[in-house]
């Protein structure tokens, strides 16, 4: 009998994996990224990102030793870049789980080549996000009081009514579950690396793969677990940004106190998440030449999702204005007029042009299959999404009920360098990931390729007779 590859029907193969690799070739392609000798370029890259992470560390040390005053926050703008960055990163963290969970439930096979990558991105984004809720507190060394630990200082519990406590639960749950999900997916591929490894690394991968041997009994429970995790993560990923949006929706500040926030935030999160995946994928597939596994088809699909969610976000902006006018509440009306034409007009219009206008280009297939262009747009979108959070937080706070207390927020160098530093952390983690772990879920891809092949085989035989 012929080998898998020789039998595959071209038009079937063309869908997701190009160049009809055999199972062995698939293993080879992905594994050699990890096994090959480390490139100097990698060292240079991690050197750069590492030092940027160092800046983050220094800024946080300065912050903790001196006080929130090193930031631009003031009365009335109690939250500014800190929470903006938090929502920005946590939003980016949504694409991964979405791809691995929701697309899995919808049987979107094209997810298999990118889900590992996207999940990793999720974890690292959440790690960056987690920094801000912790360090935006005036006394971070007391921040553990937000967890339900009856601490020995005061024997008090957190206030479970506070959206910030909901945040703590949501974000920590999300981080944990994403990590578990990611690791479960990794185990079979770690086993592959274990079995290929020559030197001591076989013991590392051996330990990490827990002695996985692909027994039918393993796969049976494994698939059950994967399905359950997908089922759990789907509502979870939606809940996280919903709850983040409660931070604002549950308050009474005009511009925050809005019922549209949960869906609006979730759409925004997926929007920014996919933008970030595209940004990174375009680079990674080129650097590690896995273009035949992560095809233009994958990228195009992601562009479509960006188009859809971007439009939803635009619709949300419009609805906010309509409701502000329709409510007849003078404070609401003022806030939105102030957003568009007040001191922060520039932030508002950057947001609109980046988030609402730029994705519309993806209506054209030519553009959404043009890699440089989508790369550019994906970055524009993330800039826009950062501005969205800034607009919501800062412009709502800086002019609320009492004109006597109106103020203006100006970021300091520390604000900026801290945010800059988080990118260093994000990229550093990413470089470590692509260097030491399989960036594509090989076993899943194999499964997909093989099942296609089998179906095609049956199909072919049926035709013969």
């Amino acid at each position, binding site marked *: 009998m012929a080998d898998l590859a020789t039998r595959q029907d071209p038009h079937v193969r063309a869908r997701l994996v190009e160049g009809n690799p055999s199972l062995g070739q698939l293993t080879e392609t992905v594994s050699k990224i990890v096994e090959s000798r480390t490139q100097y370029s990698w060292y240079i890259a991690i050197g750069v990102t590492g030092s940027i992470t160092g800046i983050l560390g220094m800024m946080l040390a300065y912050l903790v030793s001196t006080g929130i005053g090193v930031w631009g926050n003031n009365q009335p703008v109690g939250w500014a870049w800190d929470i903006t960055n938090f929502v920005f990163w946590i939003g980016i963290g949504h694409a991964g789980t979405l791809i691995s969970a929701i697309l899995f439930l919808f049987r979107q096979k094209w997810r298999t080549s990118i889900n590992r990558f996207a999940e990793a991105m999720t974890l690292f984004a959440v790690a960056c996000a987690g920094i801000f809720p912790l360090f935006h507190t005036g006394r971070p060394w007391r921040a553990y009081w937000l967890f339900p630990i009856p601490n020995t200082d005061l024997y008090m519990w957190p206030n479970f009514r506070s959206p910030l406590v909901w945040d703590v639960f949501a974000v920590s749950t999300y981080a944990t579950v994403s990590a578990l999900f990611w690791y479960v997916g990794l185990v079979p591929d770690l086993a592959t690396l274990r079995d290929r490894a020559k030197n001591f690394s076989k013991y590392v991968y051996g330990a990490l793969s827990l002695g996985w041997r692909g027994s039918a009994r393993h796969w049976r429970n494994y698939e059950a677990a994967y399905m359950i995790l997908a089922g759990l993560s789907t509502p979870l990923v939606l809940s996280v940004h919903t709850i983040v949006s409660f931070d604002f929706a549950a*308050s009474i500040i005009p511009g925050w106190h809005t019922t549209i926030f949960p869906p609006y935030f979730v759409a925004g999160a997926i929007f920014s998440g996919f933008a970030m995946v595209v940004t990174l994928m375009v680079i990674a597939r080129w650097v590690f030449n896995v273009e035949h596994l992560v095809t233009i088809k994958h990228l195009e699909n992601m562009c479509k999702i960006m188009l859809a969610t971007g439009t939803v976000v635009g619709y949300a902006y419009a609805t906010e204005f309509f409701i502000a006018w329709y409510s007849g509440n003078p404070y609401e009306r003022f806030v939105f007029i102030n957003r568009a034409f007040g001191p922060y007009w520039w932030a508002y219009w950057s947001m609109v042009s980046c988030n609402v206008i730029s994705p519309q280009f993806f209506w054209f297939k030519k553009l959404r299959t043009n890699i440089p262009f989508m790369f550019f747009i994906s970055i524009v979108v993330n800039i826009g999404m950062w501005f969205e959070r800034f607009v919501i937080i800062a412009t709502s706070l800086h002019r609320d009920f009492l004109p006597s207390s109106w103020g203006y927020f100006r970021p300091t160098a520390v604000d900026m360098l801290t945010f800059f530093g988080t990118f260093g952390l994000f990229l550093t983690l990413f470089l470590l990931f692509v260097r030491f772990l399989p960036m594509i879920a090989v076993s899943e891809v194999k499964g997909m390729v093989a099942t296609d092949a089998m179906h095609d085989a049956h199909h072919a035989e049926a035709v013969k007779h």
Partner: protein
Amino acid sequence: MIQIQTKQSGKQYWRSLDQLSHTGEFKDWLHREFPANASEMLDGTSRRNLLKLMAASMGLAGLTACRRPVEKILPNVRGVEDYIPGKPFFYSTVFTQGGTGMGLLVEVNDGRPTKIEGNPDHPYSLGAATGYQQASVLGLYDPDRARIPMTGGNPSEWKAFDDFAKDHSTKLGTGEGLRFLSDRICSPSLLAVKAAALAKYPGAKWVEYNAVTHDETAAGGQLAFGQPVITRHKFDKADVILSLDDDFLGLDANTVLPQKEFSRRRRVTSAKDEMNRLYVIESQYSVTGAMADHRLRMRSSDVKGFVADLAAELKVGGNELQIVGGNRDAKRTKWIKAIAKDLTEHKGKCLVVAGPRQPAAVHAMAHLINQALGNVGETVVFFKSAADTVRPQLDAIKELAADMAGGKVSTLVMLGGNPAYTAPADLEFAANLKKVPLSIYLGLEVDETAVLSKWSLPEAHYLESWSDATAPDGTASVQQPMIQPLYFGRTAAELVAQLAGYKDQRAYDIVRNYWIAKFGGKDEAEKTWRKSLHDGVIPGAAQAEIKPTIDVKKINGAIQGAAAATDALEVVFVQSASVYDGRFANNGWLQEAPEPMNKLTWDNAALLSPATAKKLGVAQGDVISIERAGRGMQAPVLIQPGQADDSISIALGYGRVECGRVGKNVGENAYRIRTTDGFRFAADARVRKVAGTYPLAQTQEHGSMEGRPLVREANLEEFRKEPKFAQEMVEHGPLVALYPDHDYSKGYQWGMSIDLNVCSGCNACVIACQSENNIPIVGKDQVIKGREMHWIRMDRYYSGTGEHPDEDPQVVTQPVTCMQCETAPCENVCPVAATTHSPEGLNDMAYNRCVGTRYCSNNCPYKVRRFNFLAWNYGTEEVQKMHYNPNVTVRMRGVMEKCTYCVQRIQEKKILAKREGRRLIKDGEIQTACQQTCPADAIVFGNINDAESRVAKLKGQTRDYSMLEELNTKPRTTYLAKLRNPNEELAEKHNG
């Protein structure tokens, strides 16, 4: 023993500071105002070094120890006879400023004066105090105070001075060439010592000079009545009041009594009540102008013409009254007619007052009008002046300066007042001072005068020394010390007594023996003395009332003449609401207290009307140079709606160069262009824009209410038609909550009512709160960032009226502090339950639980929460810590804080009630700090569960409303709507 300590601490201090002053770091630190430190706190290391330096340099180790005075002083009844640790004493004493005394009650914790209150038994205080007085306790613990005698710029010691003085006084002979220079004296005992000195040295002269004076007021009395009189206005008797450039509710009087009396006539409880009417003619927007029912902005130099025309309109003093020139536009004429009509309709029940800035003639005219309208004996009464003639201070100091220049002065003894800084510029006092062979300066700080004097001696602060003072009506009080002099300072009386060889040398003996002698009768005297100390008022010392009559001819002579030229700009010198004449420049509380109208902190500025600014082509923050009389200064522009056109107001007391860390180089020195011929205002200023802009730290930048019903205001007539207008001003649906409300029907339920109709926005409450609650200052940079910490703030809104709302608006002020909402939005969002509700309805804040997410502040619709963005209290020196209220936590960096309704005072009274076996606290027994000091009694606090309590009754009034009630926050602090009582003849469309 004491002496030895002095030497050591003194020498040690100077040695180290001397060597310090050579380190560059210390130099540039010196050249930075303390607030810069607040931002400098970002740099931990430099900050720490600074502390090391200070710690090393100041021999303050012993200072926090208890230093109760050795002489016998008596606690007020409100204290306890025997000292119980932690239990405060209350001593009565007296505070002297501008030549008048004001009775105070001082809280002393463990031997440390910590809080100033007004003395309820004192006729001019009645239990309230001003911001200056509230803040004076901080001045006591100012680490930058003068510490030891210096001679020729070198450290010395008291003993050296004593030897010198003994030897020198023998050389003085008859005292030719001996001059004394002091503030206006209102201390009977000092006057006695003065008399003795002048008796011993017949050739000597004693000169009194105040940079902020009521000279013209006195001269006006002299002019009108031919004898010096003291005028006492009874604002509570007047239905119609006309203020001629007189900020009598604010800075131009002693603030407290006028406000007490004035507010009595604006306390409208029902639609039936009457209300007085206030017309204000002024150049700069003052708190009095804000209170006015009608305010006419007018250059100070045009007021004379205005009052002359008014007098003519009133047919008083005959028609020979003429002012040549001056602008007589239709509006002005309309006003004069309307006011004249209103005044004549209220004969005997109206009052015309003129401000100390106005020349004697205007005061005389005011007297004339008052007499013509039969107000004398009704709304205005006169007392015999202590002095038998009025000699204008300016003449005296001119002569002194001339003598100094002419080398006629061999010994000049200066008792405070910092003349080198405050004297009129054209006298070149500082330069002349150098010509004086021997100059002796007794001052609280090492100021511009101290550094130029041969001998500069540390003066004792009024809270640490014995003296006495009389109120304007002659009511005398004894100033008793609460603590031993921190830096071994001496009083003016002691210094003069020493030079004059007076029979008593120590302040205690000087004061006590003076009064004992006055009282007469050994045992009686002793009793009276004790009683005087105890009450804070000396019985029977008040002056007798007199009924002088006016000599019209003289006045006419004075009033004649040309009106001020209108082509040049007018510059008006006003005393600063913060630093007075400059003496409080080193007081952080006052520096950071926002100017009542323009909310400027840490600076003075040239106030321009929008039109004038347009004309000059300058914008807010631009720098202009003001030139007059061949002198010039530069100042940043601050655009003040309601400022008279072509008139620049600039506050005195800034731009100090020889000053402590807080006040050094803060603002611009307006004395530079203040000359003897343009002492109060001068209409000959030339202004040009110079390069550069200057950042101004205003605590409120947005003046409009944006049409939001925050301060609710109506005219008296509207109120009578619509008594519930305030409550009906906002339309909203039923306020339903998702959950049943918590039950607050039992026990004490604290609440507050603030009457916007009497609040003048004078800032006394702001400082009182700062003092009571250990609220830190943050400094100019941080104020600009919007991080000031005041727990109670004074919101000021402009409400447009008339044709040019932005040029000539009305002003409303609103004290805003934590509303103690029953359904507090801040509590719901705090993740760690650091802010929760007490059973008594207080919105409690647990500092040690707070992690500082600032979510509560974001969610507070009133924005009354304050966050410690930096360690504001880090590096407070030991001596400064002595002013802390021991019952209030000093908050650390990173925690949120806010008004607590002075919960420490509530607890104190509850404990007291329990100890006395009482079941209930009496209404009014608990007073919050802001309420206690409010001169207008605008703030009332109490138990709203007690239907009989004042606060409950006030909340029952129809004017009662809660701000933003549509949010259903159920605030415990509610407001009584503001009313104005306009004259329909001047009525303009009012859209407040």
